[in-house]
């Protein structure tokens, strides 16, 4: 899974460079995110603006990454497309992850 990283203070912004987060890439997706957590990142904004679809395995990987933070830190999401947003609403994951229109909006919410 390819990511584009940037940082703003102690906040890591990770852009997912993939259109579909599905069963076949979910493991790599989680591995990548858990790696950021292992490196000590505790505030991560995940930019989903390139992602047009996420399936149940992709969602599982996202939740697994959040759990890897061990309750210490936050994974924020930004730029979710409609189909992705619908998935989060159906599973009420929009109540687990704070969701924003853009990384900038997410940044100003936590600063």
């Amino acid at each position, binding site marked *: 899974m390819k990511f584009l990283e940037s940082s703003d203070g102690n906040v890591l912004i990770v852009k997912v460079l993939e259109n579909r987060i599905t*069963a076949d890439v979910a493991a790599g997706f989680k591995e990548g995110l858990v790696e950021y957590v292992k490196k000590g990142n505790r505030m991560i904004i995940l930019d989903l603006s390139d992602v047009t679809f996420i*399936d*149940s*395995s992709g969602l*599982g*990987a996202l939740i697994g990454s959040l759990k890897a933070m061990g309750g210490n830190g936050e994974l924020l999401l930004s730029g979710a497309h409609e189909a992705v947003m619908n998935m989060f609403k*159906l*599973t*009420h994951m929009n109540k687990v992850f704070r969701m924003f229109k853009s990384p900038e909006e997410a940044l100003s919410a936590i600063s």
Partner: protein
Amino acid sequence: MKILLVDDDPIARAIHAMMLHSQGHEVIEAADGELAWLLVQEKDIGFVVSDWMMPNLAGVELCRKIRAANFEHYVYVILCTSKGAKSDLIEGMDAGADDFLVKPIGPEELRVKVRAGERVLNLQRGLADKNRELATINGQLQSAHKLVEEDLKAAAWMQQRLLPQPMQKAHGIECLWRLEPSGYIAGDIFNCFSMGEQEAGFYLLDVCGHGVPAAMLSVTLSMVLTPEATYGSPLMALDPSTGTSAVLPPDDAVRELNRRFQSIDDRYFTMIYGVFDLRSSTIRFAQAGHPGPILMRKGAKPQTHGEGGMPVGLWPKIVFDCFDIPVRAGDRLLLYSDGVTECVNETNTAFGEERLLSYLEECANVSLEHLLEGLISELKTWRGKNECADDISLLALEVTDDMLEP
């Protein structure tokens, strides 16, 4: 290296044999092509240096015979000619000669040509060994693959047996279903059953991911999700004082499932579980991260119900909500897995909920059987050449009038 030296001229043969000996080779001599051909067949010979012009069988003919015999090992052939004419070379190459020597042959020339041939033979031997090794591995892989495939077929058969009967009836409802696994076995499962005196329960669930790991959990769940499960059904509440059990409200049942099935590897499941109470003509649903049920009622547009909810197995302390749909005889409900709405066509467009709803609207007067069959073929058409990425399951219910109060 063992070399067969063929020449009808005893002097030339003796000279060349001496050269080859001194260069460290084992030499077998033949006085003509016919004899050489016998030796090639009998002895394990990989290298031939042969004169061209010979009685009985000429060098070029010997070469043709060797090539036609198609020995298991490669035979490297050098033809010796005193002419060196271009047309001869072409004929020799056409017969399958690998190299040529022009008489008279000097020791150095012989040494380098033989060494070049030896290199080719070594390469060929290496390749042959690799090929044999690969063939063995390939055979092992094929039998392993066959074993896995047979296991999967057996698992698919066992999973099929857990599914409801065609046209299964429970209190006040009858149900029909379709299951199209993306592989042999599915992570989707569903059922429909009578509970107690006046109730019927039905569910459809989708374990995230697909294939064997998802199917193992879905099979486990289907064993647990019956009113008569051996170790205390999560769908029923036992009253220890009376020894009787009552149907749990669906939200409590899903909460109990969530308590029992906490994920250890991000493998949660989504489900929709309904309990139809004939006394109140109401279906109470719990919706755990699963697409909401679609109500189809005569004279009304099909409508999706429910506001979503968290999937099962992610966190221990989730509260699940429920909602009621009052129903009457003739009402139909469709429960489905997201493999339906997420089925993509060749341009990566999902089938989607809207297309599903309008299909169902067109099928208002069609039998449930045809409705499901038609939907499956609709999805196949939509998918085109795409593989089925996820399991597709459909559970359709119709409220019957035989037990409803007027």
